[in-house]
């Protein structure tokens, strides 16, 4: 199976068309509906609410994640997603701004067609930005798969994930841009931005792993530009 002949005729570096709707829910403090092809996740943020849970540090804010699958009961897989998301979001939010509070993030899976965790991370990050929770930087997530012949493809759907030798979900911080940069094609230094989270399934060699990260960084800048444009639109779109 060549890497070139993907399902919808995508080339290995091409992402599915993605869209983000801002604040579809009115009762939540912030919400976002992130769609990547057939994978759609709706995230809602409530908070900050007073008080922390029993085991949490009261000098910092805590984040609580609830994952609701599309069908079926809540099991171990959902708990794993919740923990991953909680750790990721805790590392990007500024926790010392509202001490002794809890922010709840509720995720509802509307459609699942592969790359579910990256879609959920993008959705919750956008929802946190709409809710006005201060963050150090945005988290941009991408799913990469390594096929049997060593080719790396981005934004895997369900069929590709099942065929792939191994696949990884990578989360990068978004790139920083100066506010009034007169040069629109300014190349930002992505060299040492780092990696926030990485969840891998299956066995992959070191070279494949670094290959995935490289491709992921390149694609993440595209997604981060898109996120920035969506947030700008929401910020300035008021009478």
């Amino acid at each position, binding site marked *: 199976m060549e890497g070139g002949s993907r399902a919808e005729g995508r080339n290995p570096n091409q992402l599915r068309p993605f869209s983000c709707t801002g604040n579809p829910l*009115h009762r939540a*403090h912030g919400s976002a509906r992130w769609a990547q092809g057939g994978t759609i996740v709706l995230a809602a943020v409530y*908070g*900050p*609410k*007073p008080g922390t849970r029993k085991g949490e540090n009261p000098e910092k804010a805590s984040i609580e994640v609830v994952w609701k699958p599309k069908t079926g009961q809540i099991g171990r897989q959902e708990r794993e997603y919740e923990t991953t998301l909680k750790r990721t979001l805790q590392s990007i939010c*500024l926790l010392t701004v*509202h*001490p*002794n*509070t809890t922010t709840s993030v509720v995720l509802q899976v509307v459609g699942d067609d592969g790359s579910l965790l990256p879609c959920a991370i993008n959705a919750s990050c956008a929802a946190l*930005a709409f809710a*006005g929770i*201060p*963050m*150090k*930087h*945005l988290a941009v997530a991408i799913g990469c798969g390594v096929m049997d012949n060593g080719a790396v493809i981005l934004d895997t759907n369900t069929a590709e994930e099942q065929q792939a030798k191994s696949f990884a979900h990578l989360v990068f*911080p*978004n*790139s*920083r*841009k*100066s*506010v*009034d940069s007169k040069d629109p094609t300014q190349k930002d230094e992505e060299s040492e931005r780092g990696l926030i989270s990485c969840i891998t399934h299956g066995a992959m060699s070191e070279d494949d792993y670094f290959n995935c990260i490289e491709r992921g960084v390149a694609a993440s800048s595209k997604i981060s530009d898109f*996120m*920035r444009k969506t*947030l*700008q639109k*929401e*910020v*300035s779109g*008021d*009478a």
Partner: protein
Amino acid sequence: MKDRHLSLNQTQRVRLEAALHELQSLAPAIASAAAVTVADTIPVNQEDNILKGHGTSDQDGEVVATLCGVVERVNKLVYVRTLRARYKPEVGDIIVGRVIEIAPKRWRLEINFSQDAVLMLSSMNLPDGIQRRRTAVDELNMRSIFEENDVICAEVRGFQHDGSLHLQARSEKYGKLERGQLLMVPPYLVKRKKQHFHHLEQYNVDLILGCNGFIWVGEHVVVGEKTKTTGGQQRFSTEAENFTPLETRKHICRLANAVRVLSALGFTLTVELIIETMEASASSNVEINDMLGAEFYVQTAEREAKHRADLLRKKNGAR
């Protein structure tokens, strides 16, 4: 602008789009400048003398925005102001809140903030008006002053060390609000002004614009008559006699609907705008429940667009 699921027909949609477009073009150009999103660097001249305010953080020697909003600079302070922020309390704000819990020596109120506000028993005037030390008997009778789900108007006295608010209601104009409607609007639509209590004489209605986005529209209460201490049975008979008259109730409903329409359109709420909207609806004979319909919504948007265009033209003409 929340979508209130209004079914606009084609012409109404076109008119609404035109009015909104005109409002956007009339908006001052300063608002669109220097909008930042998370992780944008804010250019600063002298790095060492800048005070980094809310919404900014220092990373690798650069000032980076942590919120999405507009960059504001005041002397040496640089901060990011969010446009659709949650309510941010300041000392001296007038607040309208609802009691959710009675705790030892205090009431807890819900005020659309990240934490509940606290009104201490000692910050509240006793019913008999005497200034004295609060005893255990007073503590047991807290329910006779305010109960759960009562709506209260108070003022922010200060902050606790953990970020929660302390309120005080010592003046005559604060206290329990009865005979009216409580409306919840987004807090950024209520700007801080000199006066938040408005008494509309021609309608006999009190309008209180709480800074937290809770707005009270109710029958006018003469300040000073609140401290009547009536016995239990007496209270029933007096209330049975003086119901709010029908005219006042209609005015209250009209005002409340005017506030709902304006908040759905996203206009800053001022008393003049609310009264103008209400009079426009009364003069064009719109039924009170039709005020929440599509036609009045579109008309309000058009009227406001025309009003702002006229203001701008007058300003430009006067220059």
